């Protein structure tokens, strides 16, 4: 048996860890320097805390010699309008509103005077620009506060000079610098030109506000794109239209990894509206999740003057596929194989601590159970798409709703063998992300097709394309064993995890178990072991990678243990958590059992844990820590004799430090509960002979409004650094519901989706 290398942060996909390391290693760019804004309405102030020669050059190349580049965070215009740049992709997680709010708070801007724009992609200015890992808030918090504070300090200095008073006599409020003693007020716009002449202070030297003085952060602020959304403005990747643009559809093999050999291209090309059709060779290993890889599926590209013409042609296309190297995966066979592996000697030991065998030998009783969860698709409502234009001068322009724009540029440059500087990518709003748009396979496809036809092209995947070639959340299996001592305490824990492998030695992307996964992290005696089933299926991060499935299995099993010990689940879970301690003190990405216990108690209290309920109704509790967020949830459900399930309410208690946008945070929590329930209830992608058996929402039934539970959200007011909320609310949802089902009807759910065990809504 071999020891597996320990990941730095088990909740971060590996590529994200690389990105973080890369960002940390970026050369220190000058923190001094500002650019006078002479081309925009007569002067103004732009600040980016990494503005330097690179920014200046970009600025001059971007809009003309005298104009600032759109590559800073703050722009104060003479007319009082403040433009704040949001650097990371927006896919529904709310960062386009939340990030600028952080700047505006320290700037003391009037939010109604703020205009938010999506920034350009520029690593020198912004570092890594990624929507993933719930990382935008924690990595941006300090730098964005300082960006706002620097701007405010300079405006105050400009006001002091204008009013000929000492800066200490001035205060700021809602876009004004105010001299209290005389009652004089100067708007930020009036001060912009003068502020632009001042030296930029060291960002580390400017004072930041106390939390008690926050005016904007923690309030409910409606999303900055909401007006455009409700009026149907072109916002999303798929809405992009450029002059001369062609429409393309890409027909891929039914079996994942098959190659197109030939097709009736002539017949298809004769169809109305069709301009071209050609085979596309496979390039690289597109089934391996890799955001910057210039890899492509084999298939047939059809180019037409409209989407409908392309789709009609795709319907008539007949392709001969070579399936020799294609996936032959079968989910039903994998389930059998997992049972066989779990019963045998594990292939790898992930971690072992304490005296596991001794604890089992001394156990008053033991509990064992086998848990199964399926592959699931991302099913972003906006299917994968990209508009690309490989121009005659060798440059490339891309319009894409990607979560990893910089990786898309890298991949494009590698594909075409050109300098990344020749690639411009416009980041457009994504109609859902959930991790699918961390991969840029549709970007590479669009670029390759544009290159071939020499024209701008929009590649749109159909729903079927999107569901049948995804980087799926991998299915998995856990064979658990627990030892309970004479006091009914959890004395030892063992998990034989059965996952999938592409290379025969390491788990597939997002299919790994952390060596310190809870509760192994807090117990004296624990062993985590692993076996793997070979696969050729593509897998990758799906909202709260790893956690989204592991929490279901572990938190359900811990409830089984509590029941077996005859203990109250709340009391049992708090006991497992143990003494208040921070496993790695100072590391927000490390479990803090004090924060955990607080949210567990809070969720239980708010949900009325322990109250009497009528027969058929029950409460279920679950906790999970991921993405630096501590979340406990209590579900209240009813189950009737025909296993008709109603989830009445889910109470969420979380600690992610100070809340940036309360409305956005609550929205993420509500959505995560519905996503978690939707997925647990009825979603799975099964495979037979390498083919996904589901292709559209008729057989991949997302939850609908009539079945949405009430969601009550409570955030602990803590002073730990603020962290993200796109992901950590989701993992406890499924186990809280499954534990509530047990409480309601005595049935233990060990296989997802719930419909597999006969439940329906």
């Amino acid at each position, binding site marked *: 048996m071999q020891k597996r290398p320990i990941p730095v942060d088990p909740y971060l996909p590996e590529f994200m860890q690389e990105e973080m390391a890369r960002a940390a290693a970026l050369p220190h760019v000058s923190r001094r320097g500002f650019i006078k804004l002479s081309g925009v309405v007569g002067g103004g102030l732009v600040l980016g805390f990494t503005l330097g020669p690179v920014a200046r050059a970009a600025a001059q190349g971007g809009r003309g010699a005298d104009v600032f580049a759109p590559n800073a965070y703050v722009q104060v215009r003479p007319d009082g309008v403040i433009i704040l740049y949001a650097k990371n992709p927006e*896919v529904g997680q709310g960062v386009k509103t939340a990030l600028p709010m952080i700047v505006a708070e320290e700037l003391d801007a009037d939010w109604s005077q703020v205009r938010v724009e999506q920034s350009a992609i520029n690593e020198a200015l912004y570092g890594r620009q990624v929507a993933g890992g719930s990382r935008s808030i924690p990595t941006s918090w300090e730098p964005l506060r300082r960006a706002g504070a620097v701007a405010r300090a300079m405006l105050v200095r400009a006001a002091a000079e204008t009013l000929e008073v000492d800066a200490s006599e001035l205060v700021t409020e809602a876009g004004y610098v105010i001299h209290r003693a005389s009652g004089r007020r100067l708007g930020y716009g009036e001060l912009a030109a003068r502020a632009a002449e001042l030296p930029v202070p060291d960002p580390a030297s400017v004072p930041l506000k106390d939390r008690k003085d926050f005016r904007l952060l923690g309030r409910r602020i409606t999303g900055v794109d909401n007006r455009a959304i409700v009026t149907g403005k072109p916002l999303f990747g798929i809405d992009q239209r450029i002059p001369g643009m062609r429409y393309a559809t890409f027909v891929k093999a039914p079996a994942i990894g098959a190659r197109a050999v030939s097709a009736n291209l002539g017949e298809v090309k004769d169809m109305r509206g069709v301009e071209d059709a050609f085979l596309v060779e496979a390039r690289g290993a597109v089934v391996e999740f890799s955001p910057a890889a210039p890899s492509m599926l084999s298939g047939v590209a059809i180019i037409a003057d*409209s989407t409908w013409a392309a789709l009609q042609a795709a319907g008539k296309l007949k392709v001969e596929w070579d399936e020799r190297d294609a996936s032959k995966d079968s989910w039903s066979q994998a389930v059998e194989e997992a049972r066989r592996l779990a019963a045998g000697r594990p292939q790898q030991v992930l971690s072992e601590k304490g005296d596991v065998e001794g604890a089992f030998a001394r156990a008053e009783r033991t509990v064992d159970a086998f848990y199964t969860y399926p592959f699931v698709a991302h099913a972003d*409502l906006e299917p994968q798409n990209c508009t690309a234009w490989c121009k005659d001068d060798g440059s490339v322009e891309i319009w894409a709703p990607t979560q990893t724009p910089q990786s898309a540029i890298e991949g494009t440059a590698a594909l075409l063998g050109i300098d990344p500087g020749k690639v411009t990518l416009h980041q457009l709003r*994504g109609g*859902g992300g959930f991790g699918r748009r961390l991969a840029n396979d549709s970007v590479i496809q669009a670029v390759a097709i544009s290159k071939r036809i020499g024209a701008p092209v929009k590649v749109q995947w159909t729903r079927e394309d999107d569901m049948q070639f995804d980087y799926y959340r991998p299915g998995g299996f856990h064979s658990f064993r627990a030892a309970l001592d004479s006091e009914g305490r959890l004395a030892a824990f063992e998990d034989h995890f059965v996952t999938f492998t592409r290379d025969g030695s390491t788990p597939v992307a997002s299919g790994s178990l952390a060596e310190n996964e809870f509760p192994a992290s807090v117990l004296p005696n624990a062993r985590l072991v692993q076996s793997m089933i070979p696969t050729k299926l593509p897998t990758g991060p799906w909202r709260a990678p790893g956690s989204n499935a592991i929490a279901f299995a572990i938190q359900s099993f811990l409830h089984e243990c509590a029941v077996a010990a005859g203990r109250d689940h709340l009391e049992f879970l708090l006991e497992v958590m143990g003494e208040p301690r921070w496993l790695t003190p100072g590391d927000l990405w490390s479990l803090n059992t004090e924060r955990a216990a607080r949210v567990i108690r809070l969720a239980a209290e708010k949900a009325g844990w322990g109250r009497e309920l009528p027969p058929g109704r029950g409460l279920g509790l679950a906790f999970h820590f991921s993405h630096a967020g501590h979340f406990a949830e209590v579900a209240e459900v009813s189950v009737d004799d025909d296993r008709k399930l109603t989830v009445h309410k889910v109470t969420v208690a979380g600690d992610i430090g100070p809340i940036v946008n309360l409305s956005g945070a609550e929205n993420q929590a509500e*959505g995560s509960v519905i996503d978690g329930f939707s997925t647990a209830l009825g979603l799975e992608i099964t495979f037979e002979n390498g083919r996904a058996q589901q292709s559209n929402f008729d057989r991949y039934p997302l939850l609908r409004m009539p079945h949405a539970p009430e969601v009550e959200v409570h955030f602990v007011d803590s002073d730990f650094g603020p962290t993200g909320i796109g992901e950590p609310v989701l993992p406890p949802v499924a186990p809280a519901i499954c534990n509530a089902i047990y409480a309601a009807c005595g049935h233990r759910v060990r296989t997802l989706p719930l419909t597999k065990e006969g439940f329906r809504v």
Partner: protein
Amino acid sequence: MKLEINGKAHELGDIDPSTPLLWVLRDTLGLVGTKYGCGIAQCSACTVHLDGQPVQSCRLPVGSIGNRPVRTIEGLAEDDETLHPVQQAWIDEDVAQCGYCQAGQIMSAVALLERNPRPTDADIDAAMGRHLCRCGTYIRIRKAIHRAAASIAKEGR
């Protein structure tokens, strides 16, 4: 072929009459507010009004429309950009996450309130149950519809 959309007549030339209205709106006319989500009338992101009724435009052949008027999300606000109360309620309740499904949701909500000005939760569920929101904004959609109903009752439209 001619089509009346948002009160304006559009000449479509010799378009293939089997083309779903969705793609005529998006590709031919550039009205991209109406969204493609599934193509099989399962998600309702493509909902528009045909003769005042909410329909899924992804399965509606343009040749079948005739002279019945079409209204899309782009035709809801008034010419002076005053928002429809449903649109305003969506902003006030901060409904959207990604926002992709919301144009379709709003079109159904407007149609619901036109025939039932004070819907109950059950009425809302019945009318909105054919829509999918991948982000899970259903709770806020319900709140926004109640808010819009109250606003219309108070101020009219």
